[in-house]
């Protein structure tokens, strides 16, 4: 939220002396930028502990960095959507399942449905939005916990994916004609600019940029913070609370569908099991990014940094041939640390729990 600072002194009507500098709690700064700091620390650790080959630090090898950002692009896209929901003090557990459904629908529309690229992508994105709108509306209209509604949504999406796929993996083959997908779709699995930058990552970055602008510079973004900060106060101030609630679930639905399309394009197949467990990775990235599960506070930059940090951590551990068990334990420690830091700051600010 650093870009939301408001300067009183900017207005000539109020004398500059009216805004004396207050001592800023250093811990608060650490928390505000915790995921960026964490990312830098992991990067430094990566450099220090990186295996070397002929003096070259493998961790910093451009290919390796591309590997890291490619591997996190799907969960990253989802985490970006999840950030909106969590800022409103909600949660969306259906994201991984909607990714699976979307990848299955993408594959089957192009392979067995014979649809073209654009209609397929549009249909899948709309499907994701509709899925989110339905969840948001049910939760808002019947005042149900989003946890419950999206838990049901998770089951529903997996079930639909199994039906659509007929319990089979759908392989995507390319070419012209029936049963083949347009070859241009395979670009999602490629790397641009002299075979360096993964296309999946470009999608992730563009989506992140749009989401950052949406959250920080628009009226809607402000409403999102307001609803999470105190929905009753927001309602009294004239904020369309239900509309905002429904919209954030539409955003996660869209993000999951986008991730599903990227998944299908990267791996040339769709399976009902795709994206299993992604919801938890995404929530972890959001929390590490400094967004509070209590709502009202959080940042998109933090989420992106948190996502990349988890990817970099997994990478450096694998480069050093350290077991996945250690990786899980390290992630656990980071999540707890992030949460403890936030809690400490809240207490220092006298805001209690």
């Amino acid at each position, binding site marked *: 939220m650093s870009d939301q600072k408001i300067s009183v002194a900017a207005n000539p009507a109020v004398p500059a002396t009216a805004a004396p500098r207050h001592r800023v709690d250093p811990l608060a700064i650490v928390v505000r930028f915790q995921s960026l700091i964490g990312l830098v620390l992991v990067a430094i650790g990566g450099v220090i502990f990186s295996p070397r080959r002929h003096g070259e630090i493998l961790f910093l090898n451009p290919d390796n960095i591309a590997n890291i950002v490619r*591997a996190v692009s799907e969960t990253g896209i989802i985490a970006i959507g999840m950030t909106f929901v969590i800022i409103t003090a909600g949660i969306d557990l259906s994201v991984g399942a909607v990714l699976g459904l979307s990848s299955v629908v993408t594959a089957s529309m192009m392979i067995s449905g014979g649809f073209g690229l654009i209609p397929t992508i549009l249909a899948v994105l709309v499907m994701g939005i509709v899925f989110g709108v339905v969840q948001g509306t049910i939760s808002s209209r019947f005042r149900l916990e989003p946890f419950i509604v999206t838990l049901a949504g998770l089951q529903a999406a997996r079930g639909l994916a199994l039906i659509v796929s007929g319990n089979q993996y759908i392989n995507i083959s*390319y070419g012209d004609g029936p049963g083949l997908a347009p070859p241009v779709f395979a670009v999602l699995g490629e790397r641009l600019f002299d075979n360096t930058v993964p296309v999946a990552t470009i999608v992730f970055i563009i989506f992140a940029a749009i989401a950052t602008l949406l959250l920080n510079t628009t009226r809607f973004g402000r409403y999102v913070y307001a609803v999470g900060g105190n929905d009753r106060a927001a309602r009294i101030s004239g904020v369309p609370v239900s509309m905002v609630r429904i919209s954030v679930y539409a955003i996660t639905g869209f993000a999951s569908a986008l991730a599903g399309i990227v998944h299908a394009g*990267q791996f040339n197949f769709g399976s009902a099991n795709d994206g299993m467990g992604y919801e938890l990775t995404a929530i972890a990235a959001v929390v590490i990014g400094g967004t509070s599960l209590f709502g009202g506070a959080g940042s998109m930059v933090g989420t992106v940094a948190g996502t990349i940090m988890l990817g970099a951590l997994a990478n450096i551990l694998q480069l050093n041939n350290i077991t996945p068990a250690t990786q899980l334990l390290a992630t656990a420690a980071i999540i707890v640390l992030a949460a403890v830091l936030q809690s400490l700051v809240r207490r220092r600010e006298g805001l209690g729990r």
Partner: protein
Amino acid sequence: MRTTLRGSRVLRAALLAGAGLCIAGVAQAAEPLVKACAKDGQFVIGFSQANNAEPYRQHVNDELTAAAKEVPGFTLQIADGAGNVNTQTSQVDNFITQKVDVLLISPFEAAPLTPAVKRAMDAGIPVIELDRKTVGDPGKDYTAFIGGDNFKIAEEAGKFTATKLLPDGGEAAVLEGLPSSTPAVERLNGFKEGVKANSKIQIVAEQAADWVPDKAQTAFAAMLQAHPDIKVLYASNDMMAAGALLAAKGAGKDVKIIGTDGLPGPAGGIEAVAKGDWAATFTYPTGAKEAIEMSKKILLDCATSVDATVTVDTTAITSENAKQLAGK
């Protein structure tokens, strides 16, 4: 990448053409596959495993680790794809970054891992695929495939039933794996083929139990109700065989059970045969020793070409050899 070939079809074609060990393609260049090869060099072998959570895959990891330890210059790194194609792809990419000297891989799914395998080949890293294949042909799109033949393993079990267990005929039943999966279909068909050697044997029931013991127990209990005279049960993996044994005990029947996979350890099939609970189990070979052997050829012996497809034979584990193998 025009179409997706199921690996088994290629394999079976190759089998029809030749023997258990066969050569599908020979590289022409006289240059060694890995230029940095040396008799006493230090080499890193990366193994990208599909999903450590499956007991069979853990068994593969153990065998590979043991085999690699025998070679002084080899360091084996295992990455767990955790049943997620995205994770496995990124792990292959990481191995490429590390410039491992040989890449071993059991892809979780064929098509999704194909591009990653291609990147490794493009980076000059020989790729040996274990048990499961990516899209394309061994010897061309990847260096080699080492694996067992599900059809043939099950056929052996069928023949064993026809000649040893039920030479005078009788009723038999089959527990199938997850219905849509390739190995499930191949093992079912293989067993039926093998049993044909004895026309007095009837297969009276076949049901899917999705590879898991609890479903196997339920399914086999129901079979025994319907067909009390079942003499032999063929289970398409060890876990289902274990479930079937519980059902047989529950019904008070003495049924001869055959497992598949032949996993070691106290809960594995070898132990069950040694204890006399099952009649036999047929190992699904991991190909671990063969993979390390092939890596030695490439890295230590500077081989210019290797066999593109290596089919490893199954071992029948029966009362004759189980005790000895279990004690190992």
